[in-house]
């Protein structure tokens, strides 16, 4: 793949890649932009090289996921060395998985989108990842499993359970929203 082809491919999937970076950073837009930028630079300068073993989309999503993990790990190490309490954002998304966090507060979403993001934040990380990759990024469950680094059967289980839980949460949130109105 030449540099021009690589840039063209990347340009075509930046929007959906940013969505994946947002999902990896608990919808923290600043952190997501940093992750996306670091990932794109890795791809452009050859630190992450596409070898054609998977589709380009799954490869790019894998790089973004890895980059987000590295940044979280670095933030954790820095906090231990400097003996300062770690910010919730820096441990995203796992620590926010079952928390009461409202990541949508940082973004200017429509009401329905904000409700979806709040519901996603309450799912376990794996389920959230699989659902995001399937519904937001339009990957198949098999591709999502490859990106998330789990077996296909495991991904199917996460998909089914996540969908069920999300449906319940969206129902609860809808009722809560109606009550607030």
């Amino acid at each position, binding site marked *: 793949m030449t540099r021009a082809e690589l*840039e063209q491919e*990347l*340009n075509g999937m*930046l*929007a*959906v*890649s*940013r*969505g994946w970076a*947002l999902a990896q950073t608990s919808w923290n*837009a600043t952190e997501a*932009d940093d992750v*996306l*930028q670091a990932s*794109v*630079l890795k791809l*452009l300068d050859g630190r992450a090289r596409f070898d054609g073993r998977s589709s380009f989309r799954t490869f790019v999503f894998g790089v973004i996921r890895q980059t987000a993990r590295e940044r979280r790990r670095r933030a954790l190490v820095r906090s231990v060395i400097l003996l300062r309490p770690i910010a919730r954002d820096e441990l995203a998304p796992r620590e926010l998985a079952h928390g009461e966090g409202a990541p949508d507060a940082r*973004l200017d*979403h*429509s009401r*329905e*989108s904000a409700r*979806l*993001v709040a519901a996603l934040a309450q799912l376990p990380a794996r389920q959230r990842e699989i*659902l*995001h990759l399937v*519904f*937001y990024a339009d990957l198949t469950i098999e591709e999502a499993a490859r990106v998330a680094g789990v077996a296909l059967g495991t991904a199917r289980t996460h998909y089914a359970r996540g*969908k069920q839980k*999300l*449906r319940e949460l*969206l129902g609860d949130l809808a009722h809560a929203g109606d009550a607030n109105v």
Partner: protein
Amino acid sequence: MSEHKDEGDERNLRSAFARLRNDEAPRAPTLAELVARANREDAARVPRLAWLRLALPLTGAAMTAFAWWISASAPQPAPPAARPPLIALGSLQSPTDALLASPLASLPRGFSGSLIPSPSGSLAAPANSHSRAVPARRFPA
């Protein structure tokens, strides 16, 4: 019936995610913007670390000079004085002379007692030694 419900749920989820994607789409940067931002950050990072290029050699030179000064100003230890040997080897003519010069030569011939001196200063003879004193003979009255 349940399959229809699942399909409906899935459709609803897909449309909810599509709405979220559409909300986010305008905020996505272009590749050129990302690269330009990275270049700006690199340019800002260089002057911040430039002092290191000067500070590291200067620190190294200062530490070398300090170590040299410490070693130069410390008092030099005096060379150890030569001690005479316990026995002047040059004065002995033969191995017999060496034996005669040793303290063992002053022991009585056939001595087999202890070489550890007693509190009185004499060398004690063991109980079964031949040099034990013979008890005085008793004569009939």
